[in-house]
């Protein structure tokens, strides 16, 4: 994918096209732990500056303890380097990343992959009240939480009472 996007002449001067290209390369990098979604869809990339051939990508770390943060930054750097861009990554802490920034297509892909997407945090009560998490396989809302914590910092474990499948739920923050 990266190759298809790479430029014909690697060291052109700045153009809008280059900016778009750099943006599309960066946002098409796949999440290392959930490789069904791109980091663009997760809403991690906040901004991108192109100065001559130097790209600065502004990224938001996801969960405080997420070990993938560094892997994601390196992957962005690598992908852009392959296309001939010298790249610097800057972490943006404020405003903090939230699962509300995951795009509709990202949510759809998570579900297809078998991970229930985060219930939108629009109602704050979703954290303390009963959250209705939909089973990614049979779409039943008759599900139960097995554990608040799962295989990665971003996931909780659920089970569908209808089809009996256990599944991951992308935690809402």
């Amino acid at each position, binding site marked *: 994918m990266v190759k298809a996007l790479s430029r014909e002449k690697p060291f052109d001067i700045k153009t809008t096209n280059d900016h778009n290209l750099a943006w599309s390369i960066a946002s098409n990098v796949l999440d290392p732990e959930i490789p069904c979604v791109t980091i663009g869809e997760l809403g991690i990339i906040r901004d991108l500056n192109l100065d001559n051939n130097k790209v600065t990508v502004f990224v938001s770390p996801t969960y405080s303890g997420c070990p993938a943060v560094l892997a994601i930054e390196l992957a962005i750097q690598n992908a852009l380097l392959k296309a001939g861009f010298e790249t610097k990554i800057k972490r943006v802490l404020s405003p*903090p990343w939230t699962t509300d920034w995951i795009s509709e297509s990202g949510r759809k892909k998570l579900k297809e992959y078998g991970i229930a997407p985060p219930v939108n945090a629009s109602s704050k009560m979703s954290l303390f009240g009963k959250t209705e998490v939909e089973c990614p396989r049979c779409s039943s809302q008759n599900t139960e939480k097995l*554990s608040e914590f799962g295989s990665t910092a971003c996931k909780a474990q659920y089970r569908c009472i209808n089809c009996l499948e256990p599944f991951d739920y992308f935690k809402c923050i």
Partner: protein
Amino acid sequence: MSPNLAKALLELADDNLILGHRLSELCGHAPMLEEDLALPNMGLDLIGTARTLYTYACEIEDKNRTEDDLAFLRNEREFVNCLLVERPNTDFAHTILKQLYFSTFMESYWTAALSSKDEIIMGIAGKAKKEMAYHIRHSGEWVIRLGDGTTESNKRICDAVTALHIYTNELFINSPNTEFFHKNNILPDRASLKHGWEQAINSIFKQGLIPYPKDNNELIGGRSGLHGEELGHLLASMQSVHRTYPGAKW
């Protein structure tokens, strides 16, 4: 004393790192599989927050130190965490009660920090606050379950309260290093969070049939580097790799 934000942040960072490390000690040793996932996951959140705070402190102090230098190359007397977080895990009731005490405090601390004049602190707070809510819910449910469980589980959680409650007051004391910053709206005023904390803990204790301790004894000293011997053991283990192979990179 001239205001030094890096020093003030160190207190917060050390609290998060030391409790995070305590939780990591249970990785592979928790009483059941779900807890084996939950405890180190909470530890990860805390260590992640500590890393961001250390990195920010290094930027401010501008002494060419890194987060690793701060975490792995300071001695016991240089750590300024509160005493609560360094208490050993002992049994599960201690571990989970310590977590409830700390996360209930930190949730209100980070909530207050959302109106900090410092944008970075505001950003760290926005994320950490939501993570703390998960920690409160998890540890709170356990404290209620242990309290309202068997005679044995009730005894254990009550023993944990007796052992740990005296360390909680330190959470609400503003140290000389942080005084300037809470007066200038950069860091929250710890003392103002006490009432809300007591109410929250009291309500959980009530549900768990656990008597709320009446006496106001307190043990403090962490902010000035005076710790229990357990911190030395923790650091010996946490810092051993870095000290054996100086400059080692992951």
